């Protein structure tokens, strides 16, 4: 695998993230009209599915790029075909340099010839290394916190631990075990204890802990991409909405008791000076961020969502169609983005036009 290939994959993933974000934003606008407005579990599945499609894109490209190349199904050939059909006006040389822009960038970064590129790549490497070290440190902190906690109960491979260092319950995992860590003071509030454990168990069912680990692991590579932060915020918001919705619908505690538990937990975090305000790779009952304002705003939104009038379940068929559409768009884009293996007939035509224009210019100068 050459450095060019690695860089190309990296660029592809970033572009696909942007495409997935645009598709997702469009889907969010359409959801109310197709009865999927309050179907948070489906929305979360869709969001995670589109990201899963990005991870699997090399497989898809490997399977379909040959066929796509034979049929000139790639963005550059489609643009050239439209240009030759006169669908848009542009200088031929400008068009070719635009089409070769990405290749030029990749060459420039890999060769590290210019000082600016060296600075850019150096800064990226340093920030990535710092973020990666931070990730390892957070992992160590988490391990230490689990080690210092006390076992309350074990359900299969889920260990419910009690910690006197935290004020917000959270769930996390290692390679083999899953953990729900609850603050010691919550032991004195039976209902809150039950609600907290139910909430964290639901996060396990939704595989939210695994997704959270995945999000955190991507940070050292995608820290510079704003779409990554938008995606993280969306996933974190949706997983709480989905979890709240399921618990409120299924559990016997009722919305009021559940919301009050969230409020009490949030208040106890604000009051507590013992808890460590370091974001560990985990999923918490209420947001563990340092900013009171953003914490309040997410909590407020969650309570508003739960107390919304009627929440429909949405049709399974519509959900399936929406999922196929979103994931299909991501896959299709990944194939269309690939460079053609050979120049197509249209591309040769473009090159001929450029050469003729050049010859024309030289002849004019000679005259």
């Amino acid at each position, binding site marked *: 695998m050459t450095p060019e290939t690695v860089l190309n994959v990296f660029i592809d993933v970033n572009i696909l993230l942007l495409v997935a974000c645009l598709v997702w934003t469009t889907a969010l606008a359409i959801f109310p009209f197709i009865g999927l407005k309050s179907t948070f579990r489906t929305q979360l599945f869709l969001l995670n599915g589109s990201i899963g499609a990005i991870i699997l894109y090399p497989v898809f490209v490997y399977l379909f790029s040959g066929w796509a190349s034979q049929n000139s199904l790639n963005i550059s050939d489609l643009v050239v075909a439209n240009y030759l059909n006169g669908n848009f006006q542009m200088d031929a040389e400008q068009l070719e340099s635009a089409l070769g822009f990405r290749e030029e960038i990749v060459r420039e970064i890999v060769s590290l010839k210019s000082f600016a590129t060296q600075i850019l790549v150096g800064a990226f490497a340093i920030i990535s290394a710092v973020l990666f070290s931070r990730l390892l440190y957070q992992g*160590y*902190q988490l391990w*230490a916190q689990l080690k*210092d906690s*006390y*076992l*309350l*109960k074990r359900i299969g491979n889920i260990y419910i631990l*009690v910690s*006197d*260092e935290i004020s917000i319950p959270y769930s996390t995992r290692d390679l083999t075990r899953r953990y729900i860590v609850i603050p*010691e*003071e919550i*032991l*004195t509030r*039976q209902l809150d*204890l039950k609600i907290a454990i139910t909430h964290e168990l639901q996060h396990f069912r939704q595989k939210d802990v695994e997704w959270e680990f995945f999000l955190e692991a991507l940070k050292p590579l995608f820290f510079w991409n704003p779409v990554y932060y938008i995606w993280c915020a969306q996933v974190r918001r949706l997983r709480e909405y989905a979890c709240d919705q399921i618990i409120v619908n299924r559990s016997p505690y009722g919305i009021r008791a559940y919301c009050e538990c969230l409020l009490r937990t949030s208040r106890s975090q604000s009051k507590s000076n*013992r808890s460590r305000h370091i974001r560990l790779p985990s999923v918490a009952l209420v947001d563990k961020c340092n900013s009171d304002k953003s914490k309040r705003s997410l909590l407020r939104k969650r309570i508003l969502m739960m107390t919304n009038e009627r929440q429909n379940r949405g049709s399974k068929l519509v959900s399936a169609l929406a999922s196929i559409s979103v994931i299909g768009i991501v896959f299709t884009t990944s194939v269309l983005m690939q460079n053609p293996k050979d120049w197509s007939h249209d591309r040769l035509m473009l090159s001929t036009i450029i050469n003729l224009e050049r010859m024309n210019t030289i002849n004019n100068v000679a005259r």
Partner: protein
Amino acid sequence: MRQKKDNTLLTEVELEFMNAVWAVGKGTVREVMRNLSPPRELAYTSASTIMRILEQKKFLVSIKTEKSFVYSPTIDKADYQSKTLQHLSAKLFNNTPSSLVARLVDDENLSDDALQEIRDLLDRRLRTNDT
């Protein structure tokens, strides 16, 4: 690096349990639960976990009897009060207990009775030091 965990001081919940243990002298989880102030509707497992935490922090020791564990404190309430005050004095009053007392006396919320109690305590301590 990660701060070393301070196990010498009790959390609010642990203090509630220790107060109950100090009140009964020694007892089982259920006996301690009955003496909690304010009374709480606790699950036995929750109370038992807190007692085990206290044992692991070495504030309690347990002896296994036929039916259950009997817990007894390893530290007197007065000793713990001193330790807490020393900690408070060290952390908040730069190791100058006089500042701590001055702060207490300056506090407008101190009633005449409380002030008289402090005065009596001071007299007692001074007498002890003299002898």
